[in-house]
């Protein structure tokens, strides 16, 4: 097991190194001055000389890369070219907002997806299975931005049960401490905390459900396929033959075996989630990383693009590697596969 962990962590280190290398070279690939692209300080700025030297641009490229890494770890991520805000400060407010949405959507997907898939497999080729299979295929094919627009039109505009966009009603004036609105309300000392919670909940429920759709139907499909395969195995028949009840067979024998290939796909579901969070944030004006990144690509705000992409890619890679480790820890069969050369 420790071999798997060391191997996976070294893999993570190598990939993170490659990603940082990519991010570093982006300041050369972007049009314009590499110093400006990396730090957001324009050429005629009085601090330009200082930044030029600090980033090692008077020396060779290896030195530049090391200086880049140093400023990355020091939290000196440069400033945005649009509004001169410090990228690190902005990011530490926006990342929790994105993570809040992502975690809630992932929780919804995990609570709904696998059980539906198992129900569908249990009633394979019965009407209930066909309904679930069709819904999952439709949900898999619906573009998230259209789904978001339609749900906004129905639930926010016509029925008027939830707000259209944003994180919370600005009247509540919650001071931004962590960026994640639910934590911020808990930390703040405003009056009517409970009403603020309700308001924030109403704001988050629609984007979270829209965001959860894609990973949820993905999990339904994976679980269904895997459970159908497992339920055809002989040990299931054997379990029934020993006189176990359906519930015992399902919970003790079928479901644990079903979940093995499904855990493998958790990282796939997570990358789908991260792709969709970019789009969902834009539609719901959620003040998160995706919204900021898309705007910065549109405005050609190079330091923000560079660091935003770095953060998103590192999150995905880290989650992927930890999903691998979890799987190897939980399933010895998979561990054997990782050992094999």
């Amino acid at each position, binding site marked *: 097991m420790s071999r798997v962990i060391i191997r996976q962590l070294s893999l993570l280190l190598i990939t993170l190194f490659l990603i940082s290398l990519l991010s570093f070279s982006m300041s050369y690939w972007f049009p314009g001055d590499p110093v400006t692209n990396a730090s957001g300080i324009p050429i005629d700025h009085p601090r330009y000389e200082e930044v030029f030297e600090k980033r090692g641009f008077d020396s060779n490229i290896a030195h530049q890369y090391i200086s880049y890494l140093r400023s990355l770890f020091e939290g000196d991520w440069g400033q945005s070219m649009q509004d001169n805000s410090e990228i690190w400060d902005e990011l530490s407010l926006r990342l929790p907002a994105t993570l809040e949405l992502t975690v809630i959507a992932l929780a919804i997907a995990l609570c709904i997806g696998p059980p539906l898939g198992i129900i569908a497999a249990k009633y394979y080729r019965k009407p209930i299975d066909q309904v679930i299979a069709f819904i999952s295929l*439709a949900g*898999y094919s619906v573009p998230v931005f259209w789904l978001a627009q339609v749900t906004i039109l129905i639930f926010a505009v016509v029925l008027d049960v939830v707000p259209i966009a944003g994180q919370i009603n600005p009247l509540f004036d919650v001071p931004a401490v962590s960026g994640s609105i639910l934590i911020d309300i808990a930390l703040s000392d405003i009056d009517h905390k409970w009403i603020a919670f309700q308001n924030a909940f109403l704001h988050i429920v629609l984007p979270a459900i829209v965001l959860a759709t894609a990973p949820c139907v993905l999990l339904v499909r994976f679980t269904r396929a895997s459970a159908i395969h497992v339920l055809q195995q002989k040990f299931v028949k054997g379990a029934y033959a020993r006189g176990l009840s359906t519930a015992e067979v399902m919970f003790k024998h079928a479901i644990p075996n079903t979940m093995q290939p499904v855990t493998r796909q958790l990282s796939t579901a997570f990358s789908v989630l991260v792709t969709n969070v970019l789009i969902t944030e834009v539609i719901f004006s959620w003040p998160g990383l995706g919204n900021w990144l*898309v705007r910065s690509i549109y405005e050609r705000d190079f330091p923000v693009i560079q660091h935003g*992409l770095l953060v998103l890619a590192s999150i995905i*890679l880290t989650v992927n590697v930890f999903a691998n480790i979890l799987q190897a820890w939980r399933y010895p069969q998979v561990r054997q596969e990782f050992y094999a050369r």
Partner: protein
Amino acid sequence: MLDKNLYYEVKNPSPLQLVWQDLRANPISTATLYILGALLIISIFGPLLAPYGSNEQFIDAVSLPPAWSDQGDMRFLLGTDALGRDMVSRLMHGARYTFGLPMLAVIIAALVGCSLGAISAVNVGVKSSTVKHLLDVLLSIPSLLLALVIIAVIGPGLSNAILAIALVFIPQFLHITKNAIADEQKQPYVLASRLNGVDNRYLFFSVLLPNIIKAIVMHLTIALSAAILDIAALGFLGLGAQAPAPEWGAMLAQSLEVAYNSPWVMALPGLALFVTLISVNILGESIRSALDKRLGS
């Protein structure tokens, strides 16, 4: 007159023909074949078939609902948008951007990726699992994010978006082909052909290719659906096709402001996108199950 079929012979259809027969036997996958065929024709000949130009404005018919409602006009079957442009024509012009171009990009990516993968598998034969795991991890970054990286460097625009999508899918096809060939090369029939003394070209085209076609075709449908979704998403975010272009994602983005007053402007491009994607996905699913049945898992 000579009968060409002089001898009675039993014709056994090849596995791929069997797959095709399976597809045609299933009514739903046949329907998706027709839908995709129609989309292909529309994306090639759309501008000739469409009743009006994509940006032709009718000042007397602004925000008309579809023809079957009371205020509708038979000239505009699916209504007009806020600038008085015919929705049918815009959708037909847009099929080229949202279905035709991603398909072209995926085919090019598949050609380049598969040949590179085959070359690297046949010639180099690196068995390093570290490289394989490294690629596995790197490929877990979603395609839209990679496309965003490329667009961030070369700038927004439709042609850049298409280029980005094609570039993003090349490594995936490379990886798939390389892995499939690496798996097949361990099989005894490949060794038998080698012992027969065939050259690398024959080994690849006649021995290996028929056996890895399953993996490639399966990934082709997945990649096509992802590419369509990505190009529409980029258009929606304003990073792909730009404003007046009738790309379906960009049309959805423009419909945001008028969604309440004229919901059909928002519903139609989304519906078109949905039908396209569900057809591609159902077809991919049927091809997968047919291939599994005929070629073994």
